[in-house]
């Protein structure tokens, strides 16, 4: 019974919500809203569980005097200071919403601690994007070389300086490829392959002017849009269709009780 009852609840509520999508008549029509409301109410209470877990975990660290106990102390102190300060605000100025932006406490807390901390975390992203891009975009084979070139073109297409910088960036990239293929050709003995390598290198050199200085200087924003709207979007939609189908299959497995890792 311990398993059957939750499974039955899952099955009934799952099927009801699927039906509700097709039946506008009451009581089905607003079932989704009712379920949503209840979810909000229930999840509100579970925050007590969360607080219990958080404090329990950090008090434990303090008690055991673990290596990172000082961090636990900072967390516990911040938690209780915020809480007490909030309660004091409610008592002192009951007409103000203590968690709204009107009280001096929350404004001070918000402007001098919360905004800088959050902004810092998000700003770190730009550093990580640079280091990840540096590592990830390597011309290991044709596919990754194409990825690299399109990434650079999209970046150039999205910035105001892009049009004026494009010719030089293209020149550098194509010259690197040309030099690489020339160098490769030196090590090849088969004459046909040797000629092919040299030809590829020459094509890169020949493309520098028409592509970089003529086409991209004028059209790089449109080209970047094209990459984003056509090849990028096509791949993305393919993945999204897969995710949607997988999601439906997963939901059906959950409703039918085949998938039950989420319960005991």
């Amino acid at each position, binding site marked *: 019974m311990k398993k059957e009852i939750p499974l039955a609840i899952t099955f009934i509520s799952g099927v009801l919500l*699927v039906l509700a*999508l*097709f*039946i*506008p*008549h*009451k009581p089905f*029509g*607003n079932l989704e809203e009712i379920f949503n409301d209840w*979810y909000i109410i229930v*999840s509100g209470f*579970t*925050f007590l*569980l*969360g*607080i219990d*877990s*958080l404090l*329990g*975990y950090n008090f*434990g660290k303090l008690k055991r005097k673990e*290596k*990172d106990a000082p*961090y636990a102390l900072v967390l516990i102190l911040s938690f209780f200071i915020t809480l007490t300060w909030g309660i004091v605000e409610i008592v002192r100025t009951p007409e103000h919403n203590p968690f709204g932006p009107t009280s001096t406490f929350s404004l001070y807390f918000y402007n001098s601690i919360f905004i800088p*901390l*959050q902004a810092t*975390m*998000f700003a*770190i*992203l730009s550093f*990580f*994007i640079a*280091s*990840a*891009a540096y*590592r*990830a975009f390597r011309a290991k084979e044709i596919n990754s070389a194409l990825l690299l070139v399109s990434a650079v073109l999209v970046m150039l297409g999205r910035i105001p300086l892009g049009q004026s910088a494009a010719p030089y960036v293209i020149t550098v990239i194509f010259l690197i490829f040309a030099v690489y293929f020339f160098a490769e050709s030196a090590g090849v003995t088969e004459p046909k392959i040797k000629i092919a390598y040299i030809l590829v290198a020459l094509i890169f050199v020949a493309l520098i002017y028409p592509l970089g200085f003529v086409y991209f200087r004028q059209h790089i924003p449109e080209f970047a849009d094209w990459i984003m709207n056509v090849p990028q979007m096509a791949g*993305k939609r393919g*993945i*999204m*269709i*897969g*995710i949607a*189908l*997988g*999601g*439906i*299959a*997963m*939901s*059906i*497995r*959950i409703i039918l009780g*085949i*998938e039950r*890792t*989420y*319960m*005991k």
Partner: protein
Amino acid sequence: MKLIFLLLLGQITPIVVKAVDTPYDAGGSITVTWELDSTWLGKIGRIEIYRYSSAGVSDSLVETLYKPDTIYVDNATEDNIPYFYGVVVYADGEIFGEGRTTEPAVSSQQWFNRKRLSVLIILLVYTIFLMYFIMRARFDKNLFIRKIAGLEAIDEAVGRSTEMGRPILYVMGLGYISDIPTVASLAILKRVAFKAAEYNAQVIVPCFDPIVMVAAQETVREGFIEAGRPDLYNESDIYYLTSDQFGYAAGVDGIMVRQKPGAVFLQGYFFAEALILAETGHSIGAIQISGTTAVTQLPFFIASTDYTLIGEEMYAASAYLSRDPLSLGTIKGEDYIKMILAIIILLGALMETFSIGNHILRDFFSIF
């Protein structure tokens, strides 16, 4: 009175107005339509829509439109009461055209939303396919499923982390228990917990949502029990961190830097914090296996982690790992449906490109 007077003088153009119950809804709504001559379009300043009940209640203005629309949905009607509608068109501040409905309209609730018929058909076909393959899976024990590198690597990652004497960090992202990626992540967590219990390794799961935390605790406990080591299970390793996005990212980064896990799993739904977590994981030299259905975050994971489960691969994880024939059956069904959809998409693109078939496919798949 002025209206009727002007109408009699012939200075106002009569407009044909129709009102019907808005189809396929939960009642309380009437759709009003009227016709505008295409030669008026540039002149129209505003259009006023009036509603009045048959009992002769004076007109009440329900809406003013500032565009030459020809449709208005009145969502504030009471069911089973007949209403009439009037439409007045203004040009250059003067009344230009006017019209009223001749038949009363009554709003009511419907039992079936026919606009979603195509969704129902697709859902039924899909479900039948899945059911068929679930049934087949009962007899055919050798369903083939291609290798998924990210899932194959789980055991290796847990093993290597244990060899290094380091804990395993499992991050479930910012999803709630109602999100499917979170449920899929629990299935992977169970496998990780199972392997960790076998190797006697510690699994740390910092959570973003308290309900997810409870579910994760249950899942890890189950994994440890299945591995026959319930004594090793430590509930306080799975704890709640915060429900603030970047607070969570900062907290998890802190755990990575201080506890130096040997393996990091980033499985679930992620937003902008994805790369912050993945790059920090990379910097401490952990082997990282990521998986998400957040399409915008996938490129970041692919760039920064060792293995990535792309979208549906994550959903396939529980079937793949458990080798449960019923679950594997649904994946087979999913693949067939995908093939059929690909053919339909190709067909639709061809039909639209060469204007064949009067948009039949396009209309079938347009639900909005």
